[in-house]
C-alpha cells in the first residue's frame, strides 16, 4: 500500500523506475551521495537556520580546543550539538550532563559522516533534567532515612585477606584495580563478580553481585567500580535497588564510580567513596611494606624500651649493693653459704662411712652363709638375703644422691645470693680444724689449736697464738 502510494507520488513528480506495461520515459540520472547530501544540507541549513530547541544535556565533552560537544535529548530522540569556542566563552553557566537547557542555533550538516548537528549560539539553563531530578529526589529520600550518616560508615579492615569486586570483567577498570592491588599487596585474594555496569539490567546485576558476594561470606571488603561516562552511563549506580543492596551489605563497601567529579548515590551510601577505581584499590590496603615497617618500628622501640628499663634497674641494684650496710649483709650470707658447704661435706663423709659399714656387714653375712653351704635349704634364704643387701645398698646410695643433690642445690642458691664475691674484697673465713667449726666467737677455739683460713684465692693453715675476747 505504502509502496504503491510512493510510486504514484514519484510518477507525479516525473520519476520512473520502469513500471509494468507503461511506456518507458527517459531514465533520470541517479544522484551521487555527495549530491544528495548537498541537497539535504541545503534544505536543513536553510529551513533550520535559526531554531530554538529545549532538551537535556548528555554526554558532554569539553575539547582542549575549547569547543563543547554534547547531545540534546528528550525521552524519544536526541540530536548532536556543539558550542564553538567563541560562543562557549560567552556562556554564563557551566553546562553539565543532566541539565535541562534551551538552545538557540542553526542546523549544520557534516557531509563526510552524513550527520547533522545543531550549532548552538545561545544556551540557557532551564532547571534540571529528569535524570538529575530523579537523582536529587532519591538522594534526599535516602538522606532523610539517615543512610548517608557518617555514624553508619564502617571502618575498613586494616589487613583484608579477600577482596570482592563487582564490575565489568573486561576493560580498564578491573585491570587498574588488579594492578594496584598486586603492586601494594601481592598476596591479597580477589574475587570478581562480573556484572554489566551500564544499560538495561545493569542495576539488577550489580544488586545480585553485592548479594552474592555477601552470601559467599569470606570476603573482608568489597569494591563497586565503573569507569567514567555520562550521567546515563553511570545511572545504574543511582538506582534505589543498588543503594539498598549496599546499605544491607555486611561487607564494608567502597564505591568508585566514574571520574573524580562524578558523584552517584552509591558513593553516598557506601562506607567509603573513592574518586576512581585505582584510588579504591589503594584504599583497600595499605602497602605491605608500610605495614611491615610499622610492625618492625614497634619491635625496635619495644627492645629499646626494655633495654633502657633493665639498665635503669641494674644501676639501682648496683647503687644499693655498693652501700656499706648491704655489703655487710652480703658477707653474712656468704658465711652461711660456707657453713652449708661444710655441712654437705660432713654429711657426705658420714654417709660414706655408713655405707662402708653396711657393705662390711653384708660381706660378713655372706661369709657366714658360705660356711653353711652344706645346708641346701639355706640357699634360698641366702639369695633373699643377698637381694636385701643389694637393696639396702641401693637405698643408701639413692638417699645419698638425693641429699647430695638437695644440699648442692641449696648451696648453689645461697651462692647465687652473693654475686659480689665478698672474699674478693678481703674478707676471710676461719675454721677450727680440731672441731671443724667455722669460727664466729673466740670461745669456739682455744690457744694452740690449728686453724684453716679460707681466702679469696687459696687457704692458709695457722695456729691460735692467743685469743682476745671482746
Amino acid at each position, binding site marked *: 500500500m505504502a509502496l504503491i502510494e510512493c510510486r504514484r507520488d514519484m510518477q507525479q513528480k516525473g520519476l520512473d523506475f520502469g513500471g509494468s506495461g507503461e511506456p518507458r520515459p527517459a531514465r533520470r540520472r541517479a544522484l551521487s551521495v555527495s549530491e544528495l547530501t548537498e541537497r539535504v544540507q541545503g534544505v536543513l541549513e536553510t529551513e533550520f537556520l535559526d531554531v530554538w530547541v529545549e532538551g537535556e544535556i548528555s554526554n558532554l565533552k569539553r575539547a582542549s580546543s575549547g569547543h563543547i560537544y554534547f547531545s540534546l535529548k528528550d525521552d524519544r530522540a536526541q540530536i548532536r550539538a556543539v558550542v564553538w569556542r567563541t560562543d562557549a566563552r560567552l556562556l554564563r553557566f557551566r553546562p553539565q550532563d543532566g541539565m535541562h537547557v534551551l538552545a538557540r542555533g542553526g542546523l549544520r550538516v557534516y557531509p563526510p559522516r552524513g550527520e547533522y548537528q545543531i550549532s548552538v549560539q545561545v544556551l540557557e539553563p532551564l532547571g534540571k533534567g529528569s535524570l538529575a531530578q530523579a537523582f536529587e529526589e532519591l538522594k534526599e529520600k535516602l538522606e532523610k532515612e539517615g543512610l548517608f550518616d557518617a555514624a553508619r560508615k564502617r571502618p575498613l579492615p586494616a589487613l583484608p585477606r579477600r577482596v570482592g569486586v563487582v564490575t565489568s570483567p573486561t576493560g580498564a577498570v578491573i585491570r587498574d584495580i588488579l594492578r594496584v592491588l598486586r603492586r601494594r599487596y601481592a598476596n591479597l585474594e580477589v574475587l570478581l563478580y562480573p556484572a554489566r555496569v551500564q544499560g538495561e539490567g545493569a542495576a539488577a546485576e550489580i544488586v545480585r553481585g553485592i548479594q552474592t558476594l555477601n552470601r559467599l561470606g569470606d570476603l573482608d571488603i568489597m569494591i563497586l567500580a565503573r569507569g567514567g561516562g555520562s550521567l546515563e552511563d553511570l545511572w545504574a549506580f543511582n538506582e534505589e535497588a543498588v543503594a539498598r543492596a549496599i546499605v544491607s551489605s555486611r561487607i564494608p563497601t567502597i564505591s568508585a564510580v566514574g571520574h573524580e567529579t562524578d558523584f552517584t548515590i552509591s558513593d553516598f551510601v557506601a562506607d567509603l567513596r573513592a574518586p576512581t577505581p585505582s584510588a579504591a584499590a589503594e584504599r583497600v590496603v595499605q602497602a605491605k611494606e608500610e*605495614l611491615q615497617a610499622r610492625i618492625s618500628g614497634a619491635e625496635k622501640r619495644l627492645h629499646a624500651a626494655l633495654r633502657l628499663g633493665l639498665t635503669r634497674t641494674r644501676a639501682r641494684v648496683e647503687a644499693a649493693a655498693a652501700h656499706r650496710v648491704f655489703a655487710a649483709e652480703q658477707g653474712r650470707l656468704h658465711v652461711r653459704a660456707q657453713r652449708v658447704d661444710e655441712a654437705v661435706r660432713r654429711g657426705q663423709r658420714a654417709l660414706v662411712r655408713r655405707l662402708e659399714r653396711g657393705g662390711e656387714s653384708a660381706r660378713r653375712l655372706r661369709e657366714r652363709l658360705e660356711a653353711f653351704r652344706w645346708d641346701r635349704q639355706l640357699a634360698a634364704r641366702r639369695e633373699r638375703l643377698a637381694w636385701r643387701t643389694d637393696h639396702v645398698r641401693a637405698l643408701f646410695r639413692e638417699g645419698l644422691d638425693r641429699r647430695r643433690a638437695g644440699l648442692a642445690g641449696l648451696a648453689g642458691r645461697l651462692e647465687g645470693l652473693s654475686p659480689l664475691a665478698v672474699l674478693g674484697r678481703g674478707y676471710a673465713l676461719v675454721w677450727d680444724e680440731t672441731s671443724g667449726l667455722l669460727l664466729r666467737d673466740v670461745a669456739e677455739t682455744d690457744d694452740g689449736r690449728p686453724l684453716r683460713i679460707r681466702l679469696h684465692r687459696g687457704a692458709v693453715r695457722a695456729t691460735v697464738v692467743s685469743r682476745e675476747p671482746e
Partner: protein
Amino acid sequence: MKKNEEPRFEQALAALERIVERLEKGELTLEESLTLYEEGIRLSRLCHGKLEEAEGKIEMLLKDGKGEPALDAQGRPKTKPLPPPEDEA
C-alpha cells in the same frame, strides 16, 4: 580479648603499639616490663605472620544461564582464575 579467639591484625597491631608506649613511659616494675615485653614480641610475630597469610589468588565467579553463580558438587561457587595484571614497568 577472649583467650580462644585470635585477635585480628589491626587489634594486634594496635595492642603492640600500646605496649610500646607503656614500656617507653618507664613507670613499670621490672616484672611488669618483662611480661609486657613478652606479650609485645608475641604480638609482633602474630602481625608478621598475618601479613603472609593469604595466597594472592585472583578469581572470577562463573554464572549459570540465569545469572546465578554456578556451583560445584560441594555447593561451592565455581570460579575461574583471572590472569594477573601486566605490570606498568
